[in-house]
């Protein structure tokens, strides 16, 4: 099933440069130091170079599988249940004001 035309491992492909990694970090909402960006760029390039062997598998017409068992989702009765009190959740808040989560201002 090897297909040399679509096998990127045969071409020189330094996959992730620092600017791409910086963009991905922004999408991921991760503030990373310069040193972290460097090392992630290098490590993920190695990982992706290895993973490009996947291109060798012929997957034409194969439906992607997103969950491993043949699940049928069941409906349940829509009823109100009293579970844990709000206070139990609020106790974990980094900042709060009375019965509310306190967050920084988001509109200027």
């Amino acid at each position, binding site marked *: 099933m090897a297909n040399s035309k679509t096998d990127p491992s045969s071409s020189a492909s330094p996959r*992730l440069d620092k600017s*791409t*990694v910086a963009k*991905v*970090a*922004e*999408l*991921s*909402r*991760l*503030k*990373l130091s310069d040193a*972290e960006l460097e090392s*992630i760029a290098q*490590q*993920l390039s*190695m*990982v*992706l170079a*290895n*993973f490009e*062997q*996947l*291109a060798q*598998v012929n*997957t034409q017409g*194969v*439906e*992607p*599988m*997103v*969950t*491993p*068992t043949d*699940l049928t*989702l*069941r409906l*349940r009765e829509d009823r109100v249940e009293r*579970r*844990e009190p709000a206070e*139990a*959740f609020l*106790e*974990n*808040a*980094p*900042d709060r004001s009375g019965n509310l*989560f306190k*967050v*920084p*201002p*988001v509109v*200027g």
Partner: protein
Amino acid sequence: MMDLTFATCSEVGRAVRDRKVSAVEVTRHFLKRIGELDPKIGAFTTVNSRAEAQAADVDARLARGEAVGPLAGVPIAIKDLLCTKGLRTTASSKILANFIPPYSATVVRRLEEAGAICIGKTSLDEFGMGSSNENSAFGSVKNPWNPEYVPGGSSGGSAASVAARMALASIGTDTGGSIRQPSSFCGLFGIKPTYGRVSRYGIIAFASSLDQAGPMALSTEDAALILEVISGRCERDSTSADVSVPQFSQQISDQVKGLRIGLPKQYFAEKMDADVERVTRESIEALKKRGAILVDVELPLVKYAVPVYYLVATSEASSNLARYDGMRFGHRSKNATKGDLDDLYSSSRGEGFGPEVKRRIMLGTYALSSGYYDAYYQKASQVRRLIRDEFTRAFTQCDVILSPVCTSPAFKIGERINDPLAMYLNDIFTTSTNLAGLPGMSVPAGFSKEGLPIGVQLMAPHFEESRLFNVSSVLEKDLGAAKSRRPHVI
């Protein structure tokens, strides 16, 4: 009085219910062991300060003549990825260092309903991401068989706590091998159940289509007993299966005559440690002597299991871990630019997550991002289906598949920490069962020249865990690996 340190869960449960020993005595015994041994091992992130009170409650119920379940008074260690109401749950991450869950995972609730005592929470690779337990924000865990070696991961603390007899069993979770690999490294019976067998409610999500919780125990019977307690449909997890749960522990049979054991030749073609190969061959011989039939099976695509697994798992993780934003719970940065919400998210996450978690969020975000989705996430999901189909075909020719768990026994602390790719490739034998949703089990089968335990892996079709327990019980009796030696710490 019975020797609690070397008793099994079912023996202790019976003795507590027959009031030959109190749950409080059992709990004190194991808390004392934790106090003495854990400073050297580092298996626990939190010891349950209410364990003794919970045990007293079990004793009080028994005194009133109430029925208490099969795990009455049995101390079980819980991976710190499962929420425990009122008891700190960290995922071994700085970002959740002070998180107190308002509710318990279904697994924890079912164990407690069966009378078990949650003795403490065990260390893991942060969010379950790792194979050595070196990625914990609270320090690495030592292998009780030799403290220079890793206990495996990500359920390394769960494995070490039981190997050192600081608990009689533990709960781990397995996304790509995180129950089976540490079980192999620490000489335990560890089972990753069929996807959907055990509720994921209250388990901090890593990769939702792969994660399953399961027992890590000192005997086949204990693993079976705990699995039957924690299994079954739960209305708070829509992916938990509506499939009846057998009385696994009552049905164990060592009749393997005529059972077809599949040997995937692609697995045996991988480069592996000579001791692993020897122990695997000895397991096969033991089953053959009992009349099992050996069948060669083909699984040519499993050689792609590691890339498929890491692309699927990191993609799901990048989405699951988006919830850690420092708003309602978890770490919130004090160093963000005032008034800049994005900077607050990024700073909180940058400070709160460790290096491996950051790497995986980045890999997953990249694999899902516009322009790369087709080549990575979608491609991986397609190959995932082909891998599952291969297993379905293989199971028309055999009843159980046998393979090594890992290419090597436990490795030394620090040896692979700077080489993520080498660490990932270590998961070659375990990841495909998660991708296909199959049950997989690690069974103690022998030792390396250095005296480290080595397990053998058994796999079965969906919901056929009973077959694994039958084969495991034969290997337990005939190889005797679980009983022949003890870790140096005990």
